[in-house]
């Protein structure tokens, strides 16, 4: 719908009209996800109709078809527990070799990938689905929420990842965004994003730490903040430690108590999920109470359970102690002591656990900072960075590699090329040589991790540099170069330098998706393309209608006097009908109501046009007019 618009020079009633799509910040969490937008340096989380910012990172694939995300998916657990996935982030970029890290954690049927570097898949909803695919559903839901809240298309995002996410998990996150139709402007480390939210909002300066205990991961980062520069000094963490572990500890106790009381449960997925749901509830209750109780029902048999804060503290003490140990290591890496820290920012719902707050306060000798909601702070920081990247802000974010990158050398020993905490982007190279006369090829095995032996590190990629001209052992000079980009993603290349014949092989580490996987996934998303397309058209219709209404309101405010009372009443009635249609889900109704309003207001627009011309001409003499016509 196009209403004729007349603007005063330099006075456009719609500042965002005609602007491209918006860029949002997304915290894709293990337990919950949040989408936020920043405008003029002010970030805000986007809420649903009921005012909730958190979207549970839960995806359901009902037997009846379709996909549910968030609260709806979580609620669906009661009906078809086998078709609901939670905590999928723990499997991002994980291969068969990593399954021990999550074994017993996730109540799903997990299928190892076929090769060493293939990501695992989940058998869910009758089909094998990759973590990328499942995460993409969450991203799509966040994108839809943002488009509904902002009434604009959202095609670009800054997505946060745990600082400790390795290359494979980062690549997988980027792939998921692509499947969800989002261009990733930048992957930003979660603690860095949190610091950004504090630094920019609160103007903090000095040495800050971010203690991020999420559902499934722990990160501790040290940053120096000054005059718009956010310099990460050191970071460390554990990708298999988080609030989910607290839930599991409680759930195990609940199930054990039932067993003790003679209830012969078959501990299947449904039982585990019910126990976990009650466990989560009890954990949350204990954040501000000394004891709690609840009722658990498995296969129709109820049981009642109580838990005190002291008992809960004892259960999670080891996990919390481990986070403190990791934090101290990061401080030592940066050559700092805890008392130099100005403040610790708490991130992640698990930092609401009183024992966690007490231990963090004990470590640095001052109470931690909590004035920004720990569940939203990461998304808010990501939104600020998205605005800075698209609007050209003055903030400078200097991040580091969380894990060392290296190569396998003789005897399975790791030669580190890029040490951990190296500022990124980074380009580092090292020369290697042949160990046999006439050796024509060299195997290159790229690994990530802090351990000395290849077997203890994560294998990222293998390739072979072939075509090395015959030389005596030790004569060849093979330069292997590692490039880590600003997203923390790695590219490795190798070349033989003595002969002038530049042999060059470029390798992107695997664990992400093969081209075939990606193609399959994009093809699958075509299945939902019609629904996606309809939603998009609906959003566009709403945006257009809103734009028309704003223009009409501006015109009415200025020139409302040009209308008779009846005309005005008719326009107001049409306006109300359009607003009602915009609340609904029918694009056709919105368009029809918009057209009706446009037809009704056409005479008004024409009268305004006439008046505009008269005003432009008033005060001019005939001579002026003639000379103008003559121009």
């Amino acid at each position, binding site marked *: 719908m196009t209403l004729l618009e007349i603007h005063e020079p330099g006075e456009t009633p719609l500042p965002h009209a005609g602007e491209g799509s918006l860029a949002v910040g997304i915290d894709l969490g293990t337990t919950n996800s949040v989408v936020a937008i920043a405008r003029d340096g002010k970030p805000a989380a986007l809420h649903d109709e009921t005012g909730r910012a958190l979207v549970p990172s839960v995806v359901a694939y009902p037997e009846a078809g379709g996909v549910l995300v968030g609260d709806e998916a979580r609620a669906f657990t009661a009906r078809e527990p086998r078709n609901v996935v939670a905590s999928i982030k723990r499997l991002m970029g994980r291969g068969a070799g990593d399954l021990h890290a999550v074994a017993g954690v996730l109540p799903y049927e997990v299928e190892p990938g076929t090769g060493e570097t293939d990501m695992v898949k989940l058998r869910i909803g009758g089909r094998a689905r990759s973590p990328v695919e499942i995460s993409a559903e969450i991203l799509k839901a966040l994108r839809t929420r943002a488009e509904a809240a902002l009434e604009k298309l959202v095609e670009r995002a800054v997505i946060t990842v745990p600082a400790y996410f390795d290359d494979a998990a980062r690549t997988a996150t980027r792939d998921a965004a692509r499947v969800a139709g989002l261009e990733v*402007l*930048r992957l930003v480390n979660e603690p860095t994003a949190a610091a950004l939210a504090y630094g920019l909002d609160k103007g903090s300066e000095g040495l800050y730490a971010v203690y991020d205990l999420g559902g499934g991961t722990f990160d501790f980062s040290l940053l120096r903040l000054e005059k718009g*520069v956010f*310099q990460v000094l050191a970071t460390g963490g554990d990708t298999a430690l988080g609030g989910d572990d607290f839930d599991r500890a409680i759930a195990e106790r609940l199930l054990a108590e039932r067993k003790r009381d003679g209830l012969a449960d078959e501990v299947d997925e449904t039982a585990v999920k019910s126990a976990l749901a009650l466990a989560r509830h009890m954990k949350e209750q204990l954040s501000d109470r000394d004891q709690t109780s609840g009722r658990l029902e498995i296969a129709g048999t109820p049981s009642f359970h109580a838990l005190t804060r002291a008992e809960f503290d004892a259960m999670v003490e080891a996990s919390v*102690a481990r986070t403190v*140990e990791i934090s*101290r*290591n990061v401080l*030592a890496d940066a050559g700092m002591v805890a008392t130099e820290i100005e403040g610790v920012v708490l991130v992640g719902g698990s930092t609401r656990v009183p024992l966690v707050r007490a231990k963090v306060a004990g470590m640095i000798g001052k109470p931690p900072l909590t004035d920004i909601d720990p569940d939203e702070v990461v998304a808010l920081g990501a939104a600020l960075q998205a605005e*800075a*990247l*698209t609007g*050209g802000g003055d903030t*400078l*974010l*200097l991040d580091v590699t969380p894990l060392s990158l290296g190569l396998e050398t003789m005897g399975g020993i790791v030669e580190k090329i890029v040490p951990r905490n*190296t*500022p*990124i*982007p*980074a*380009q*580092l190279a090292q020369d290697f040589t042949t160990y046999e006369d006439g050796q024509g090829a060299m195997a290159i095995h790229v690994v990530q991790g802090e351990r000395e032996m290849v077997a203890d590190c994560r294998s990222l990629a293998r390739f072979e540099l072939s075509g090395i001209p015959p030389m005596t052992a030790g004569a060849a000079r093979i330069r292997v170069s590692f*490039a880590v*980009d*600003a997203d923390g993603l790695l590219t490795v290349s190798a070349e033989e330098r003595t002969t002038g014949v530049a042999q060059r092989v470029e390798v992107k580490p695997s664990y992400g998706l093969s081209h075939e996987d990606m193609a399959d996934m994009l093809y699958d998303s075509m299945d939902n393309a019609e629904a996606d397309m309809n939603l998009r058209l609906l959003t566009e219709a709403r945006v257009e209608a809103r734009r028309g209404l704003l223009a009409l309101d501006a015109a009415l405010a200025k020139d409302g006097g040009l209308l008779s009372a009846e005309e005005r009443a008719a326009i107001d009635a049409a306006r109300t009908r359009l607003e009602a249609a915009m609340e609904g889900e029918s694009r056709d109704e919105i368009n029809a109501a918009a057209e009706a309003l446009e037809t009704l207001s056409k005479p008004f627009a024409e009268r305004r046009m006439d008046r505009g011309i008269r005003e432009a001409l008033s005060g001019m003499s005939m001579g002026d007019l003639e000379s103008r016509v003559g121009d």
Partner: protein
Amino acid sequence: MDHFARLGLPAALDLDAAALDRAYFSLQRQWHPDRFVSKPPEDRARASAEAASVNEAYRTLKDPLSRAFYMAGLAGVDLPGDGKTIDDPDLLMEAMEAREALHDAATPEAVDRLAAQAREDVQEALAGLGSLFLANDRAALRKALLRLRYLDKFAEEARARRMNLDRSNA
């Protein structure tokens, strides 16, 4: 271009840390890839390469020990790669005695004392490097730098030992 020139700083052993940070931040403001998000791919690649070079220069010069090694390299001092065996008998003796002392240290306080001593030795050795650079005494520089590398490693080992003691006492 050497790392000092890249950051526009004098090639000095006692670099002013604040000046180094200022030069680094200013160059990153110019070249960081975040400033090139909406630029053509060739500009982005150039910025990424420049930012990486600036990062490498900063990382090398920031730590006094790595700065000293880098300057020695520029001065033509031939240093063996990291992790090679110690070929200086005096240093070998010192290292063996210190390792033994660390092994015997049973309390966190005892480990802390050894670590503090090592840090003091590092400072002292660093302070002595200036005159060696001035005299361009490559043999003495080589000897001093290898000892520094060892002392640094020892401080790291003391730290690991301390962590282990903390853990077993917890």
